């Protein structure tokens, strides 16, 4: 990872190096966008819709997204379902265990802002953006598989815009 970060710095000095970095950016972004492996992390009702989206009618595999069981090999967490106060440190722990270019999709009303459990519930986190940095929010309770796929495509667009230089 370290080496890759330095490539653009050297390339810039070469004459016409800019073209090379942009094309390198394009290759890296295309590959990263079209092979987002999502972590099997479903807590509540949205997990059933996540499974339904993985099934044959709305197949995730068409976008190149297969489920990985271990956070080390996943580069996308789809936080599907209510995150309660007891589950929040677990979610943060999983996010920290993931390898670096990682993304988070907040699927469902509960992860966006508490959803139907915002009022009168003493045990539910009101949204997960204060736990993990979220890239794409998908409203709905539970969101339809089409909106989940649309969320993934939005994330792919976002990934395609990133530059190598500003990697963390």
């Amino acid at each position: 990872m370290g080496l890759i970060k330095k490539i653009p710095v050297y390339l810039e000095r070469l004459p016409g190096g800019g073209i090379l970095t942009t094309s390198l950016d394009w290759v890296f972004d295309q590959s990263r966008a079209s092979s987002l492996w999502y972590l099997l992390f479903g807590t509540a009702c949205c997990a059933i819709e996540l499974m339904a989206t993985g099934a044959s009618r709305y197949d995730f595999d068409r976008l190149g997204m297969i489920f990985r069981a271990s956070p080390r090999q996943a580069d996308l967490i789809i936080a599907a379902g209510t995150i309660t106060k007891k589950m929040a440190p677990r979610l943060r722990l999983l996010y920290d265990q993931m390898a670096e270019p990682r993304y988070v999709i907040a699927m469902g009303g509960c992860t966006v802002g508490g959803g139907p459990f915002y009022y009168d519930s003493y045990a539910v986190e009101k949204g997960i953006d204060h736990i993990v940095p979220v890239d794409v929010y998908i409203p709905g309770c539970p969101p339809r598989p089409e909106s989940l796929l649309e969320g993934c495509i939005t994330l792919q667009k976002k990934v395609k815009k990133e530059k190598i230089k500003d990697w963390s």
Partner: protein
Amino acid sequence: MDRDELIKHLLEKFPEKIELLETGRAEPFFLLKNKDDLVAFCESIKTDENLDIDYLCNIGAVDTGERFEVVYDVASVKKHIRFDFKLRFEYEGAEIDSVQKVWPAANWYEREMWELYGINIRDHGNLKRFLLPDDWDQGHPMRKNWDAPDFVRMPEVE
């Protein structure tokens, strides 16, 4: 064994201990006056051969604003009997016996009651926290008078 036979049978068996609450529904509802003879009452309805109550549907605690109530819904799988009974006791010194010995299913129900309502359960075995986060220190959330900084109530809309 239909409803009236059941009521007659139970009332003669425990003349002064229980009293029938008029709910007009198929399942009779009794009130156990004194909460100390709970375990004796449960054991006798379980061993009584023409009652044979061996299936505990549900134990629920209720905070009615001025006192606690604990409702036991029981049934018999073989004899198709189902009825409920409840205890009433004040807030302070809220302590009841555990019916785990009669129905092992009661274990988690009582543990939940202890955690969310603060009703102490005598000789329960493992009264540990299991629904709320481990570092929970804001008391017993299901009580009516409970409140917390981030607890938002739904506004009244007419």
